[in-house]
């Protein structure tokens, strides 16, 4: 169970033993969350739970399936995948996911959207993809771990994890140190001396400080906290725009067992028609823009500068200056042939213009339902799971922080964040405290709380769970839904019949987004007349494939001339990978 922390009680990080299904008001440890999930699922016929894999430290990655009684079995229904806590410090995502599940089950039968969702769709929820990373929140000190339990030699010095952060001033939290340094690049911010700013020589400013992570140089290599417990940030471990060679991205894409677990589930359940993830990335509050790009990152400079103090750790020990990178154009066609063969297509990296309107609609619905109008902390999405979801899996795929800090002003993100913290009266900023460092002299320790800057107070969990439950139900109603509207058979003589059938997509999303088609992540809708192929004389093929049927009632029609006999009943089936299965019969008269 979680340990007590030396921080103000309103953070409510003390473990509770509550097992009631009342809304929780703490962030939950692995054991507590497991209990909560088990009791949630145990109390409902529409919910089940399974483990889709183990983390590196052997914790289960739980997947909850919500599916009520309905016409189709769950695996044939259009589905939504919800994933939380890919980054270990984003505890709120997993809490919202569990509470949203609770809200949906509670509303089944009374809320029409929810009742329809649970009857016609399936919702898969992985609250905490990174249980090992999240558990660090309950450790001492709390240091904002994002990665999983993978051990990485971050500074590549043939020693593993020998120099991590340290809680020097015993406040139970790892923040940053600002150190007077004549060769530093930073000065205290003129508008608020709690913040820092880069010195601008043009303005006559000269740097006075350097920022470090709170800690000591445990291995004597001249760097502080350059090789800690580390781990892989799971939301940088996926295949789209994967950040090669970054130490927190893993040895290669989908290197981690947690990542493999969710990937294997996605591959085995291609009825998943939309994805919602919670994390440090957003395309919901701010939909992709007209160029198909997402908003620029907004990160916390105090932490970025501390991280920068360890830049160059892997440049130590490079001798010989052999850093020329061969340029084939310069060298001419010295190797191989003179005409390089066709290089094939390049991966798409911007949201397709035809798909963008759907993202805008969903973004509008999200902001209306949750009231979240402004993004907070968010970073570049390279390697994020939701980007794989759109750019490779080919479905509407969304990411959000899940909450918003109070509206505030400020030139930089740090200023806005600090203003929001001040106006909420929270303790998310730890005031600078003087400290005598063993090697750096008189320093100050303080800065943004690693968890409180990126998670709301836990009292907000129930309300965020409810609003996101409502959003999930709204999203479910938008999923493709392909059904037969009619089928007829007309005798044309000579033992031949003309059979016509029409399907309609009553959902909002098309059966395949434009990029779902480009990426071939989505199969065409397959309509088959269930007779011997030889009995099909003319018209559409026995197996007719339609690559896209728009939503909002768009139809697709099929026509076959078949050999048959009077009185024969013919079944016609449809299979839309993201829009469900259906069938209809006609009798040949």
């Amino acid at each position, binding site marked *: 169970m979680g340990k007590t922390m030396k921080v103000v009680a309103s953070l409510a990080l003390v473990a509770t033993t509550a097992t009631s299904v009342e809304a929780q008001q703490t962030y939950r440890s692995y054991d507590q969350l497991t209990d909560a999930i088990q009791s949630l699922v145990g109390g409902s016929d529409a919910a089940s739970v399974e483990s889709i894999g183990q983390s590196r430290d052997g914790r289960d990655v739980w997947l909850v399936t919500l599916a009520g009684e309905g016409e189709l079995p769950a695996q044939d229904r259009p589905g939504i995948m919800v994933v939380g806590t890919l980054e270990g410090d984003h505890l709120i995502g997993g809490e919202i996911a569990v509470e949203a599940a609770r809200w949906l089950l509670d509303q089944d039968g009374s809320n029409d959207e929810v009742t329809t969702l649970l009857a016609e769709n399936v919702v898969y929820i992985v609250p905490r993809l990174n249980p090992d990373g999240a558990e660090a929140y309950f450790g001492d000190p709390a240091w904002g771990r994002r990665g999983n339990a993978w051990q990485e*030699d971050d500074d*590549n*010095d*043939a020693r593993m994890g020998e120099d991590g952060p340290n809680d020097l001033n015993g406040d139970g939290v790892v923040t940053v140190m600002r150190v007077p340094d004549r060769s530093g690049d930073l000065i205290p911010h003129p508008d608020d001396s709690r913040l820092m700013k880069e010195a601008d020589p043009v303005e006559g400013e000269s740097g006075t400080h350097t920022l470090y992570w709170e800690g000591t140089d445990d291995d004597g*290599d*001249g760097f502080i906290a350059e090789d800690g417990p580390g781990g892989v940030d799971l939301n940088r471990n996926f*295949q789209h725009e994967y950040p*090669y*060679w970054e*130490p927190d991205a893993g040895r*290669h*894409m*989908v*290197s981690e067992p947690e990542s493999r677990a969710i*990937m*294997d589930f*996605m*591959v085995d359940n291609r009825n998943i028609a939309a994805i919602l993830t919670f994390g440090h990335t957003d395309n919901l509050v701010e939909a992709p823009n007209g160029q198909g790009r997402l908003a620029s990152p907004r990160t916390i400079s105090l932490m970025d500068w501390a991280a920068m103090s360890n830049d160059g750790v*892997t*440049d*130590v*020990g*490079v*001798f*010989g200056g*052999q*850093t*020329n*990178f*061969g340029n*084939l154009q310069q060298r001419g*066609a010295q*190797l*191989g*042939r003179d005409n*390089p*063969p*066709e*290089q*094939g*297509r*390049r*991966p798409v990296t911007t949201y397709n213009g035809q798909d963008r309107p759907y993202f805008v609609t969903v973004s509008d619905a999200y902001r209306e339902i949750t009231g979240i109008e402004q993004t907070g902390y968010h970073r570049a999405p390279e390697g994020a799971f939701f980007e794989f979801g759109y*750019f*490779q899996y080919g479905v509407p795929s969304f990411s959000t922080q899940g909450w918003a800090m109070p509206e505030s002003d400020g030139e930089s993100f740090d200023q806005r964040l600090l203003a929001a913290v001040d106006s909420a009266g929270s303790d998310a900023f730890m005031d600078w405290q003087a400290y005598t460092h063993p090697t750096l002299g008189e320093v100050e320790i303080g800065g943004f709380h690693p968890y409180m800057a990126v998670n709301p107070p836990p009292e907000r969990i129930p309300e965020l769970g409810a609003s996101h439950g409502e959003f999930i139900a709204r999203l479910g109603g938008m999923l493709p839904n392909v059904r037969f509207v009619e089928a007829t058979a007309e005798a044309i003589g000579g033992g031949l019949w003309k059979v016509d059938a029409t399907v309609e997509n009553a959902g909002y999303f098309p059966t395949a987004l434009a990029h779902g088609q*480009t*990426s*071939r*992540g989505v*199969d*065409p809708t*397959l309509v*088959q007349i269930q007779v011997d*192929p030889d009995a*099909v004389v003319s018209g559409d*093929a*026995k*197996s007719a*494939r339609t690559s896209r049927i728009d939503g909002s009632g768009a139809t697709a029609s099929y026509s076959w001339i078949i050999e048959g006999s009077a009185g024969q009943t013919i079944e016609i089936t449809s*299979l839309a990978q993201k829009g469900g299965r259906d069938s209809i019969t006609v009798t040949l008269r």
Partner: protein
Amino acid sequence: MTNAHSRTGQRTTAPRMPLRTILGGATMLAVGLSVAITATPVAAQITTGSDPEHELIFSWDRWLDHDELNERMEIMADQWPEFLTLETIGQSYGGRDMKVMTINNPETGDELDKAAMFIEANVHGNEIQGGEVVIYTIWYLMENYDRIPEIRRLVDERVFYLIPSVNPDGRDWFMDETGSGARTGHVPVDSDGDGLFDEDGPNDLNGNGVIEQIRKYVPGAGDFVVDPDNPNSLRRVGPNERGDYILLGSEGLDDDGDGRVNEDPPGGYDPNRNYPSDWQPQYVQGGAMNYPFELPEPRAIEDFMVTKPNIAGSQSYHNTGGMILRGPGAAWYGDYPQSDVRVYNELGENGERMLPWYDYFVVWQGLYAVHGGQLDWANDGHGAVGFSNELWNGGQYYQSPLLREQQQDEDTPIGGGRSNYFFDDFLTFGRNYVEWAPFDHPQYGEVEMGGFRKLQGRVNPRFMSMELFHRNMAFTLYQADEMPLMSMGDAEVEQVSGNTFRVRVPIRNERLMPTILERARRYDVVEPDILTLEGADVLMAGWVDEHNFDGAVDRIDQAELDRILIRSGHPGRTTRYIEYLVQGSGNVTIEYSSQKGGTVSTTVGLN
């Protein structure tokens, strides 16, 4: 067999050396039968000649099933246990054991302290002959350890990891079945989007073990005519002509009744696109599956390779085309740094001299873009110099310039598209061709079926095997020989004053490859080399130019001078001198430890 040195033509019954002969029991046309290899000591065979017989006699003109590959390795591991270790590293999707043979002489050092050459083959199931090259390589090194000093040196200095087939399911599908569609592995893939997996593959309709071509006689309405000089050969007619035949594709049926034939065969992906370097999704790189190492076979190999950071060289044998390939696989990936390219160039260009029909070039430049291939990952993820040979070049059928000319001349018996038929008729005695024969096809009616058998084309003719195996092995052994090899000369000590001494040590990498490729250095893929000094306090350390021994050193600015990190490694064919200024007494030991270059040390007394 008559021994050439036997003057009387008689054979004695007393063999000069103990030997075991492995009899291959497969008949020429065995299809779909698995054959047990028996190891039978044959005392009454051969030899009184002066040219020593082998310890193990294998036939080299047979193509081996996956079981037989493993069996031969087991036989060799039993024969030479002092050098050979055979271990299972995992199973294919179909449950076949994947085994790696390690060659190491423990008397010359620990396995992980020596540079290792990783050799694999047959990632595409139909690209079989690399498997035999791997078996041949193990056999050749062991047979000649006592006979050829250079082979002994190679085995003593290096480690070899060999795996003859990294797609056992595909290989057996090729060998034991008709051979059609064997490139892929056998993880089920829904290739036609109907929710079913692998439900409609090719069918051997006439039961002869071959998936043949189908032609239909449609006089005056076809695209092809029969070659008047060769009834087996069809030629496409010109733009304004009509012929008598149409081609209807390969043997098959609509197994799932969806109106399409053979649209969802077993598997349906390319296992050599499932590696992480520049891995791309299917619309950019067909057959790449959903994520790198999704497939069990590449994953098993990777799990093995990450335990062997001493791997400095890699070879993956494919067919066909006669190539010595290096990465990168895609143009947008750039090229390797200049210093790495120089290493590749020397190896590749010499390789062309050992393999007369093979060209050395970069994959994306001369072949096509390959995203997510093993070759890129060997270089990028393991920091190894990686090559991939495409075995066998069609030009080797008619090798001389004169015959190559004749092939272009329609009026010669080997011109006008007839050369394959001529070769098969006269050199393989019709073994590789099935004559066109009538067949009543359930869908197409009266047709004819025929065509070349699976072993023609990409696989070399049997009688040309041993040369192909040997030349490719020789290139790979040459590459192995040029892996980094560190050595350290004697330390020189000079007293400066009191107990302060100057210690200078020459450190050398004898071979072409650096201990750390520049690309691996750039991305921190391998551990740095580490230079340690024990036994005294280090006041200062630096590299010294051998021409300037009494001057200033190129000072090393690191916090721990008794444990110096050398991230850029040690370049090939270079000697460097390290100079320490130490305080102490007694012995000091200087050690250079390199993951791919070995560990060397020297000890000297301070006095």
